[in-house]
């Protein structure tokens, strides 16, 4: 059951009762451009946290920094009480934090079932010397295969089991990538735009899958653009703009937050386009512009 966040102040950097991830002072700049500059963010265990923000807000860079795919210029990250600043992506995955990618990375020339089996952790047969002697790993392989088949059924991909992953549709690849990530029994799953490019019918089932992760006690962090989706499934929303966290809170408060509205629509979006009053006019009166062209 998701923890009660009603006591948490809906403001950037607010402390959570039971954080699984804590980020402090994380910065990443590309040349002169500061892509991410997050003072403090905590992610509550066992809930669905949405990370939203306009294009170029630094959401994906933030994800890359979080999961070790990119190195921050500074700052600390703590996962489940342990400092993870120097951890590589594969070490983080083994610790229980897996991610998916915005552009799906289905391993096209591997079958769907092999994609799934790859996700399992602690495989004895993945060591070179052990792999030569099948009896040492075949029992574990059967267990993994059974688990993979269960997940494939749950994600309704079981009919594609033996197909190359490259033959799947875009939406099916998203499903496969999520299912594959689950093979490692993660405690945190970071989904980078799981709904992008997925048809509406499939979106619904993807949403159900994400919700069911929460029921299993998995912490979900996801990047999303579609506000309906965010409203539907997220327990907590973190809003980024220009690399900073500008707002946090349950989705009800986010929609009314002035900083968020400004970030998405621009600070002067509700200023009147008063065409009669000359001084404040954003667009010059039509007659003037017409004259200008004639000159």
């Amino acid at each position, binding site marked *: 059951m998701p923890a009660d966040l009603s006591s948490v102040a809906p403001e950037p950097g607010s402390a959570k009762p039971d954080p699984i991830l804590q980020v402090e002072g994380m910065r990443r700049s590309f040349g002169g451009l500061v892509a991410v500059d997050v003072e403090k963010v905590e992610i509550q265990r066992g809930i669905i946290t949405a990370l939203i923000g306009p294009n170029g807000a630094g959401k994906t860079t933030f994800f890359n920094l979080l999961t070790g*795919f990119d190195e921050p210029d500074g700052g600390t990250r703590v996962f489940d009480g342990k400092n993870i600043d120097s951890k590589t992506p594969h070490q983080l*995955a083994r610790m229980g934090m897996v991610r998916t990618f915005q552009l799906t990375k289905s*391993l096209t020339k591997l079958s769907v079932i092999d994609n799934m089996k*790859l996700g399992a952790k602690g495989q*004895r047969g993945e060591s*070179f010397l052990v792999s030569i002697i099948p009896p040492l790993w075949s029992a574990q392989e059967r267990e993994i295969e059974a688990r993979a088949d269960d997940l494939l059924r749950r994600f309704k991909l079981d009919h594609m089991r033996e197909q190359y992953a490259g033959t799947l549709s875009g939406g099916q690849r998203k499903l496969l990538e999520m299912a594959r990530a689950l*093979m490692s029994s993660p405690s945190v799953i970071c989904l980078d735009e799981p709904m992008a490019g997925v048809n509406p019918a499939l979106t619904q089932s993807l949403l159900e899958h994400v919700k069911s992760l929460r029921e299993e006690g998995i912490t979900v962090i996801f990047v999303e653009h579609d506000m309906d989706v965010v409203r539907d499934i997220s327990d907590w929303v973190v809003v980024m703009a220009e690399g900073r966290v500008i707002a946090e809170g349950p989705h009800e408060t986010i929609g009314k937050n002035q900083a968020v509205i400004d970030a998405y629509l621009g600070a002067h979006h509700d200023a009147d386009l008063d065409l009669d009053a000359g001084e404040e006019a954003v667009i010059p009166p039509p007659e003037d512009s017409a004259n200008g062209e004639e000159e």
Partner: protein
Amino acid sequence: MTVLLAAVDWGQIFKLTVSSSLGVDAMVFAMAAIGLNIHFGYTGLLNFGHVGFMAVGGYGVGVAIATWGLNPYLGLLIGIVFALILALLLGLPTLRLRADYLAIVTIAASEIIRLLARSTTLRPWTRGTEGLNEFAGEFYNLSPFDKNLYDWGPFFFTANNLFIVIVGWITTVLMALLVWQLMRSPWGRVLKAIREDEDAARALGKNAYWYKLQALMLGGAIGGAAGMFQVIAKSTVQPDTFQPVITFFIWTVLVLGGVGRVWSPIVGSMIFWGLLALVENILRQFVNEGFISSVIMDSNQVGIFRFITVGLGLMTLMVFRPQGIFGSREEMALDAR
């Protein structure tokens, strides 16, 4: 025309073709291509200096026996160790970087090795361009074949060649079986995942760098073994047998058979060398019998022309069967997406 063709000894051509497709070169290239297949076919590593592994393997065994006077079997071990060290030297700095860096480094390294071997500095060990000779005798003492020449039907070998070819092909098949076993194991699955998308493998908890290094070492050791078989078969190790073009012949063999398939290096190599012998012997007889006027081609040009024909054959293959002999069209189509 039929009268003319009847003068050609087709039996002889057939015999030389079959013997060549099972001969020392075919065996060595099949083995080397198995190593390259682990690199490129299964792990996606761009190795354009595979001949470098053959060179260090060959020189390892040659120098150990001829220069250092060590036990020949220890020499074999040293050849493999040299290949493994080369793999580490090449892999440690480059495998963290993008794939192209390994390609650049391997092609340069293979030339550095050849030039070092023929340099005056290393002359006390490698004997420069002359190379090392007469060190393989110990191995042939094991040979049960004592006749000068073995001429069975289409097979035609000297005693020493027959011995090394039999041992070599058995080793090659065992290596292919090893690759088959590895690639159906979870270890091979990780390699294939890295070939498809390294980041995905890392996101799933696989140490891609370490797996790539393992693959480079395994394929390099097999390449080194191929080099050892080559120098033992010829009883000589000379720097200029390890020209960069050898690397590309190995690539040809691999692409011909089909990349990422267990048996393709073996079949690819047999076809490659069989085809070369077939074209050469047909042309040679035609030239000798006067079917081809010496204005067009003399017997000295046959050797070069056979490569032109094989090149044309490869181009045709790439147009009509780009996946190679064993490759799957379905997989090729996935790349295009």
